[in-house]
C-alpha cells in the first residue's frame, strides 16, 4: 500500500540518532508524527541519495530477519521504494526487538541527496503505516519499554543549533513548558489530527471560523494550510513573493500581526518573531515566511499543518493512551 506522508524535507532541522542491528549500525533520522514507517537507506540502493548517506547492511547484523515484502511511500517530490526487514532498533537506550522497517532500494531523484538525515522514524498511528508494519512506538508500548503510552517533543528556539531540543518517550518534562498542558482530543487516528475553532490574524478571525481540521506534525517544519487561504494570510502579514517564496521586509516585524490558532477554547498565538524565519544571504538579512500553501485533497484533507514553527512555541505531548494531544507554551 502507499501513503502520502506530508513531508517537506526542505526545512527539516531537528534530527536524532538511532541504531539498527547487531552490532548496531547508526543512522540519523528525523522523528515524524506525520508518518508511521521507519525506513533507512539499504545496501541494495543504487540511487544518488544512497551514495551520500550510510546504508544498512543486513548481512552484517546477526539479529536481522528478512521479511521481504515490498513497500513504497510517495512524497510530494518523488517516491521511495524498498523491501521490509526486521531487526532490533535502539533509540537512546530503548531497544525494540523485531522492529519491521523499510530498507530503501530506490530514493526520489534529488530529493534526499541534499538532506542531512538518512531516514525517517514515523510516530503516527498504525493506520498510516505503509506495508501494514507495526510502528516503532506501538512496539515500544507492546514490549513494555515505556511506563506511559506517551511521547513528547520539545523544539528549542535557541539560535545556537536549537540545543536542548529533545524527544521524550514514556512521559513529558514540565520544565519545558509554563502553566499546565491543555489536552485536545484526537479527531482521527492516523496523523495526530485535532479540531481548530478558528485562526485569528491580529484581532480578526480570518480563517476556519466554522471550525476546521489540523494535524500536529513534526515532519513539517512550517505551518501550512490550503493554498488560497495561505495566500490571503501572506497578504495579511505583509509578505510578498521574492525569488519563488514569500518573505517580508525585516524592518516591519514589530508592526506585523500575531497569528493565533484557537484550539479547544484556548488561543495559541504565534508572534512575528515565531513565524518569520530569518536567514543571512550574501551578508543581507532575509526574512522568510513560516507559512506555506499545501493543498491536501479529501478524504484526508483539507488540513492545516502545525509544524515546527508552531511546536517551537508550544511543547507538544502525544498521548496514545487517551488519544489526545497536550499543548502548553514552551519556556
Amino acid at each position: 500500500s502507499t501513503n502520502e506522508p506530508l513531508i517537506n524535507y526542505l526545512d527539516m532541522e531537528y534530527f536524532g540518532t538511532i541504531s539498527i542491528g547487531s552490532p548496531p549500525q547508526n543512522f540519523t533520522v528525523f522523528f515524524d508524527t506525520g508518518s508511521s514507517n521507519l525506513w533507512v537507506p539499504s545496501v541494495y540502493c543504487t540511487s544518488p541519495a544512497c551514495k551520500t548517506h550510510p546504508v544498512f547492511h543486513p548481512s552484517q547484523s546477526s539479529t536481522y530477519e528478512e521479511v521481504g515484502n515490498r513497500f513504497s511511500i510517495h512524497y510530494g517530490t518523488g517516491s521511495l521504494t524498498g523491501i521490509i526487514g526486521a531487526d532490533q532498533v535502539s533509540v537512546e537506550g530503548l531497544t525494540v526487538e523485531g522492529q519491521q522497517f523499510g530498507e530503501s532500494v530506490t530514493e526520489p531523484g534529488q530529493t534526499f541527496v541534499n538532506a542531512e538525515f538518512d531516514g525517517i522514524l514515523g510516530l503516527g498511528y498504525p493506520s498510516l503505516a505503509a506495508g501494514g508494519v507495526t510502528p516503532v512506538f506501538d512496539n515500544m508500548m507492546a514490549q513494555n519499554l515505556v511506563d506511559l503510552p506517551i511521547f513528547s517533543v520539545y523544539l528549542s528556539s535557541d539560535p545556537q543549533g536549537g540545543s536542548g531540543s529533545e524527544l521524550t518517550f514514556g512521559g513529558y518534562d514540565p520544565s519545558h513548558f509554563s502553566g499546565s498542558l491543555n489536552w485536545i482530543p484526537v479527531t482521527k487516528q492516523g496523523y495526530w489530527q485535532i479540531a481548530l475553532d478558528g485562526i485569528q490574524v491580529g484581532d480578526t478571525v480570518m480563517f476556519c471560523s466554522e471550525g476546521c481540521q489540523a494535524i500536529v506534525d513534526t515532519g513539517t517544519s512550517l505551518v501550512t494550510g490550503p493554498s488560497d487561504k495561505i495566500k490571503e494570510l501572506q497578504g495579511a502579514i505583509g509578505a510578498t513573493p521574492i525569488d519563488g517564496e514569500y518573505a517580508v521586509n525585516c524592518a516591519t516585524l514589530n508592526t506585523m500581526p500575531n497569528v493565533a490558532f484557537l484550539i479547544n477554547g484556548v488561543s495559541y498565538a504565534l508572534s512575528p518573531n515565531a513565524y518569520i524565519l530569518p536567514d543571512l544571504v550574501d551578508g543581507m538579512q532575509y526574512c522568510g515566511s513560516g507559512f506555506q500553501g499545501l493543498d491536501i485533497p479529501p478524504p484526508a484533507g483539507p488540513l492545516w499543518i502545525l509544524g515546527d514553527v508552531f511546536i517551537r512555541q508550544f511543547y507538544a505531548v502525544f498521548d496514545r493512551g487517551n488519544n489526545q494531544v497536550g499543548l502548553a507554551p514552551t519556556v
Partner: protein
Amino acid sequence: AMHRVPLRKHQSVRKKLRAQGVLSDFWKSQNLDMVQFSESCRMDQ
C-alpha cells in the same frame, strides 16, 4: 522512567539552497509553485 532522545538542529536544505542561490531553480526543477503564482496567472489568462 523517561527516555530522552536529544535532537540536533542542522541547517535546513532550504537555507543551503538559498545560500547557494539555486533555490528558485530548485522550485522549477521540482515543478513546485510555492507562491501560487501560476494559479493566479491562469485566472488572468
